[in-house]
């Protein structure tokens, strides 16, 4: 069936891979989609594109969609998460001065204390956006009392060199770029703080997926197959080559390949498992509890009532659409749509339709557990 043209906005980051691969490896074409990728250099512009109907869907920071649902962003049309695009991909780096003053880092809890005492009372941390998994991770790990600043990822190295920030948490390839420029030391992976941090979602304007069910289903399946391809053996090198092209990231393939193939050297050894996950362990399933967890963290940061925030966050993670459209593609579907977050220390089998679902470890460094309110 022919769907015609669908436009997806993306921000130049390695984790835009699922939408880029959906186009480049023909998964979109196989679903009858002429996939047009529209680059945005800021999250604000990506949001405007989506609000204005200039694109049908977008590669969006998961907390950004949740923040909109909570009324924390300008009152544009609401968006919802059709599926999760990636887990992980966050690099934490320190200025040369801060890195020099640190003792040997042994685990995330000890590292947090060491960073706080080495940096003194004023720890300034660069993140790509106020509403990002990066900001949530930093607040969980080092807060309260830290100063979180938005720095566009390509400027992260310059901000570190210019002593505007002491530490950053950013999506690849910009951590590697800062390290290659010799201005920062890569300390840790975001996974050292939260073993399976959801990062980007495939977002659409609320109501679009209902208004165009065939288009939504086709797009979700194409992106899901791209994610499966990305987590397949030996494909990451090819992905790095594709992403390196001038129309995408325009950076050397080696710069992109390091983190895609788990060759980034972290001072603090990350927990076992890949740095990026696009598919395995039901990574693309939009757990409603993930939306609730992000909302709970944002509510705490902005001093808002927990309960309505949690409900709003859970509601935009469209588990129902995922179930409806992905069964036909052969995706295994879990029995539940919510889970207690932060309890899994090891890969764990859970009840699912095909009985093949194994969830990845999802523990927080401090053992925090999020038990979502029952809906």
């Amino acid at each position, binding site marked *: 069936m022919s769907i015609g043209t669908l436009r997806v906005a993306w921000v130049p980051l390695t984790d835009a891979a699922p939408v880029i691969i959906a186009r480049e490896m023909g998964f979109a074409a196989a679903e009858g989609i002429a996939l047009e990728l529209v680059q945005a250099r*800021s999250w604000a512009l990506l949001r*405007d594109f989506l*609000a*204005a109907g*200039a694109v049908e869907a977008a590669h969006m920071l998961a907390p950004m969609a949740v923040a909109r649902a909570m009324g924390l962003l300008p*009152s*544009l049309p609401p968006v919802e998460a059709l599926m999760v695009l990636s887990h992980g991909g966050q690099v934490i780096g320190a200025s040369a001065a801060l890195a020099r003053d640190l003792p040997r880092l042994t685990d995330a809890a000890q590292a947090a204390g060491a960073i706080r005492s080495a940096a003194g009372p004023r720890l300034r941390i660069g993140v790509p*956006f106020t509403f990002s998994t990066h900001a949530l991770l930093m607040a969980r790990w080092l807060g309260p009392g830290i100063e979180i600043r938005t720095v*566009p990822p390509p*400027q992260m190295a310059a901000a570190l060199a210019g002593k505007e920030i002491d530490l950053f948490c950013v999506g690849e390839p910009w951590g590697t770029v800062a390290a290659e420029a010799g201005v920062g030391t890569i300390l840790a992976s975001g996974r050292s703080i939260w073993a399976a941090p959801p990062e980007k979602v495939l977002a659409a304007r609320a109501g679009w997926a209902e208004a165009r069910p065939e288009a939504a289903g086709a797009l979700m399946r194409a992106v899901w197959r791209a994610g499966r391809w990305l987590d397949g053996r030996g494909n990451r090198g090819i992905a790095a080559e594709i992403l390196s092209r001038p129309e995408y990231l325009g950076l050397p393939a080696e710069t992109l390949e390091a983190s895609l193939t788990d060759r980034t050297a972290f001072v603090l050894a990350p927990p076992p498992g890949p740095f990026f996950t696009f598919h395995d362990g039901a990574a693309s399933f939009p757990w409603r509890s993930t939306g609730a967890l992000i909302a709970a963290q944002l509510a705490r940061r902005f001093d808002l009532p927990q309960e309505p925030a949690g409900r709003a966050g859970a509601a935009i993670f469209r588990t129902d659409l995922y179930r409806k459209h992905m069964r036909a593609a052969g995706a295994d579907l879990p029995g539940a749509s919510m889970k207690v977050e932060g309890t899994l220390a090891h890969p764990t089998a859970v009840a699912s339709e095909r009985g093949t679902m194994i969830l990845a470890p999802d523990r927080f460094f401090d053992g925090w557990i999020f038990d979502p309110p029952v809906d």
Partner: protein
Amino acid sequence: MDRQLNILVIESDETRAHSVAEALASDGTCRVVILADTSGLGRRIAEMDPDVVLIDVAHASRDVIEEMAVATSPKERAVALFAPGGDTAFMRAAIEAGVSAYVAEDVRPEVLRPVIDLAIAQFATVRRLRLELEATRRALDERKVIDRAKGILMRARGLPEEEAYALLRKTAMDQKKKLAEVAAALVTAAGLLG
């Protein structure tokens, strides 16, 4: 506007920056500062304290300004977006969708000034809506406190609802305080007494 408007133009192309500045300054009601280098942008905006920030719609530093617009900032600012050679269809749609900014197609003075005024007007509307929302939220909170205080009186003194309310209102009038304040004091006191 009864005073000069301070406008910060974020633009690295010198020629374009100057033509924008000239266009804005031509009627003498604006003071324009151009910023080419965006490192440390947040701090510099705070220092310059402009009334309006004018920035290219596709500029990578928009997220920094976005951060300043999120509730926590002590001073809110209007942001005008500038789409040179403009994708007018997109911007029209964006404006209709509620993006709180307006855009100039090119740098003609007669176009630019109205755009800035529109951005300020739109900004004022958004701010008014936000203040109204806060007022509504506060009113709801006050209602809740009054209801709880009423409940405490009803239980402690065996009063029916209307009498409990009347007692609260009379106490507030006698003490020349707001009803919500008296209710809050009662709820706190009851909490202390267990």
